[in-house]
């Protein structure tokens, strides 16, 4: 009986450690990306839905979420994980190409490639693929998110860019920017 009691306390401790471990690892890995990751800017089209647990957020639809497959590589129907090779451009940063082998150097991001979204042409079958970036939402204060959406709906000519930090294939959205100003500051102006 005493042994079962000790075992239960052991499981109690283990559960606490696992829960804290998952939370801790998440915090550590995302903080590391934010500190050490390269900065990229992508154009986004925000929409404002609601999450019952995490509050209001702006859904991010990234422009031009399609890219050519890297030279010498072919996509098979079963591959869903790809690596987007990122490059800096003058106006906004883009995905140069998609590779299915993990790159050893440079800035790249893990993306989900949809096999049913292969863009094929007669000349060059399966040359381009659609992909989805691993982040699709930016949480904002409850009263800010609808304002952000309204601002972009009225065709005010305001372009919003997502500022991403990328490190070893993982990325975190640092902020949404209007020019050089964070979107939240822009809205309170």
């Amino acid at each position, binding site marked *: 009986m005493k042994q079962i009691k000790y075992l*239960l306390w052991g*499981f*109690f401790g283990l*559960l*606490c450690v*696992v*829960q*804290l471990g*998952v*939370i*801790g690892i*998440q*915090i550590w890995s*995302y*903080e590391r990306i*934010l500190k050490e990751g390269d900065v990229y800017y992508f154009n986004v089209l925000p929409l404002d839905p609601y*999450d*019952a*647990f*995490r*509050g*209001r*957020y702006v859904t991010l639809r990234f422009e031009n979420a399609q890219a050519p497959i890297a030279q010498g590589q072919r996509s098979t129907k079963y591959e869903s994980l790809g690596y987007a090779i990122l490059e800096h451009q003058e106006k906004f940063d883009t995905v140069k190409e998609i590779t299915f082998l993990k790159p050893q150097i440079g800035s790249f991001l893990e993306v989900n490639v949809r096999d049913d979204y292969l863009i094929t042409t007669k000349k060059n079958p399966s040359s381009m693929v659609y992909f989805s*970036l*691993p*982040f*699709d*939402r*930016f*949480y*904002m*204060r*409850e009263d*800010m998110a609808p304002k952000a959406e309204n601002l972009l709906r009225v065709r005010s000519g305001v372009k919003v860019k997502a500022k991403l930090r990328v490190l070893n294939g993982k990325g*975190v*959205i640092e902020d949404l920017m209007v020019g050089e100003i964070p979107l*939240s500051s822009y809205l309170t102006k």
Partner: protein
Amino acid sequence: MSKENYQWLEKELPSWVKDGLVSEGSAQVLLHRYEGEKSSQRSSGIAFSLLGFALVGLGIISILAYNWDELGHLERTLLAVFLLVGAQAFAFWVKRFKPNDTSLLEGSGVLWFLMMGASLAIIGQTYHLGGTMSDFLSMWLLLSFGIAWLIPSSGAAFFQIILWTFVWLGSRSDFGGTLMPTHSFLSPWMLALLALSWLGFYAVQYKKDKSANATLLLSWAIALSVLVVFVVEVVIDTHQMQNIRMTLMLFALFFTIYYLAGKLYLSQGEKSWQHPFERIGKLGVLILLLVHVSYNAEQWFFHLSLMRATSNGSSLMGFMLVLVFGALLALFIRKEKRLPSEVLFCVTPIIVWMYGVLQNEPYTAMLFTNISVILGASWMIYCGAKEIKIGLINQGMLLIALVIWIHFMDANFDLVAKGMAFIITGVLFLSLNALMRRRFKVLS
């Protein structure tokens, strides 16, 4: 024994001892005999504790969902860790120093479960993590697994069962798209294992103290969760075949099994809300029977069941349900040792099956169902009058009244005629009730 009955016994016993009806020792034995049942009934403190902790936890989640941009990364991450560690420490303190305080045990389990979700939500909003609601709920479900067993807390298990049901629904391909955009990362086998663990926990709690409010709460959660999962599985399996007959047959079997299981094993007290399985089963069976009573419904079925193909899945499910139904019916008849007063609810699958057999002759099928329902309702009234049970009489009369009303709605009578029908049956209902009450009063 209910709390009220125990209090009555406690009040009466001294006068019985005084009159020499029972000895002092016997009075103490009697009080002691029912004390355990009384204490298990007296769990309103647990209910309030559960409600209180659940509200506090949900309130914290709601406040944090505001997304306070005044808080930086450090403050937010510290908050996530603090909430989780706080809930864990509180659960540890309760388990270590107040192991006999059921209210605190239940409450700490609920708080721990909710704070796990709150911590994940804060991390998600702080780092703007992608992924769907299903991913978030699955992670929460996985990380909170074990809380209910370790404390132990039926309240935490209640929330976990609800969470599990949402994750399961999200993982079903046909429904997942409607409820949540993508499927859970938990495989069906993993979800099935989690479900087995809740069933195991429920069995232990039921054996330990079946009349406790916390166990009753768990019963309702399991009864509703199994119902939702069954409905979704049946709809997924049969909607392509458009075989409405098979669907209704499966539902008839399922609800009757619920009713019989509730009557035989899963009853947790004297009040009607203490019989979740029986209540849900009876309601389902009643709706199914009344649907078959109407002639218009028959025409509707006729159009829908032109394609009578059945899938292997639904045939196997039907076969298993027939086996369980047969076994439970045999056990129920053996227990009752006579024709049960609510025999109509026990034989619903047979009525629904016969209706299908007679489908080529719509009038005969409808007539068969109507006669079966009226006979069943009359038997209820007869048994109610014999056993002096006004509730049973009312149930039978209500069924007959519903059958009459359905036929009035089917017929092309004008509103005045329909209104008159309602008034007449209502007056008849009230008069018969008054008459029966008077008769029962004279008899008693």
